[in-house]
């Protein structure tokens, strides 16, 4: 590693940096006008050495040279930002219906819920990894049917779907009592704040009349 880069090194460095494509030694030499290819090659190797251990590397691929991010830092280029969001009420309902009735088609889910279900709701559940496509029902129209996944059981701490409380137990626990309007309104508001539930807001207002 030379302490002070010479002019050829500087020129090669800047040219490769500004170039949209990887460049061969010949193209570089041509571009820099009258510089010997051997000199360019020497500069490239010096630079390669110079950048070793830095955040950027100078690399040769198929005789063409270019700069790239150091492989161990590749994760910096594609960062993932996790955000935790509460499932919207509509999605929770759909998930519950899938769990209790699986495999079910979307039409069946809608008929059980009594309201239309937006396509996005099932997408969210599939993205969450809790619901999966489970083939098609062999009836006219061959609708897609949905079922829960092992991840679903795991997330909700169930060893099997049979662990889900039955209707009688739900009733005994008071869970079949209609929610009062105030609570419903409060929950809607909470969901809005949570976002992701825009498409459901209208559903709820129509539900309350249902």
């Amino acid at each position, binding site marked *: 590693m030379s302490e002070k880069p010479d002019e050829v090194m500087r020129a090669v460095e800047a040219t490769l*940096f500004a170039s949209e494509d990887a460049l061969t030694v010949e193209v570089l030499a041509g571009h820099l006008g009258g510089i010997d290819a051997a000199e360019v090659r020497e500069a490239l190797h010096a630079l390669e050495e110079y950048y070793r251990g830095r955040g950027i590397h100078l690399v040769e691929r198929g005789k063409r040279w270019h700069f790239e991010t150091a492989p161990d830092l590749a994760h910096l280029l594609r960062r993932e930002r996790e955000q935790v*969001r509460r499932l919207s009420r509509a999605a929770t309902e759909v998930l519950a219906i899938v769990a209790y009735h699986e495999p079910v088609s979307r039409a069946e889910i809608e008929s059980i819920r009594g309201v239309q279900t937006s396509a996005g709701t099932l997408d969210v559940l599939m993205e969450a990894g809790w619901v999966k496509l489970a083939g098609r029902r062999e009836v006219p129209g061959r609708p897609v049917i949905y079922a829960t996944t092992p991840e679903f059981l795991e997330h909700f701490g169930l060893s099997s779907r049979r662990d889900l409380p039955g209707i009688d137990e739900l009733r005994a626990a008071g869970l079949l009592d209609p929610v009062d309007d105030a609570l419903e309104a409060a929950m809607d508001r909470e969901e809005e704040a949570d976002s992701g539930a825009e498409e459901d807001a209208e559903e709820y207002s129509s539900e309350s009349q249902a």
Partner: protein
Amino acid sequence: MNEDGLLFDAPQADDAEGGWIGPAGSKGADDALYLELDGWEGPLDLLLDLARRQKVDLRQISILALVDQYLGYIERAEALRLELAADYLVMAAWLAYLKSALLLPRDEQEEPSAEELALRLQLRLQRLGAMREAAARLMGRDRIGRDIFLRGAPEGIRIDRKTQWKCDSFALIQAYGQVKARTAPRIYHVFDRPVMTLESALERVSAMLGVTLDWMDLREFLPKHAEPRLRKSALASSFVAALELARQGRAEIAQEEIFGSLRLRRIGQ
């Protein structure tokens, strides 16, 4: 803003370049006064150009000389029958006035003084000149994409947002309960209410009318001691019954005033 309304209260030309083109070949005919093919962006621009030709600092230009040069220029342009934009002529007229005022003894000058007007013009020229120079220096800098280059093929950095959905089993079960509760078949109970049907009212009213020939108030037909809700129903039914009897020609109805008591009498046969 019209801080210089004195100078420029006339309509100004648009700043289209080249709207002010001299004949080709006239360039260089006179060192101080040639017609530029490029033209100027208005009279102030021309004045600045002329002032620059005095080859002194803008702070030291002679306004009188400048005025003469401008007026000479305009005259020359007119002699060549060039279309002069109105604001050049307005400026010429104003400068002619300024010149005559500058030549007057000081105590005969009006307010603002000619010196003040001249100074103002000079200050404006200095400011325009400064900006013109600044623009040139700015444009002469090393510029990205011309002299200096950014990375040709950046990989780009991106942030992918991944959502971690959260829900617990109670919320799940509760949601199912709500679906069931919402969609469960509902049983409606309709409670019997004490009513007097139209048939019984008709029977009752006609029976009671048969007893007397006198006018009777509608309220007298209602069952006494009935509970209020039954009384209401009886009043409504009896009223309709009275109308029906009147229609059949079996009774007549009278009412003295709006909302007054309704009286009923049998029509004798």
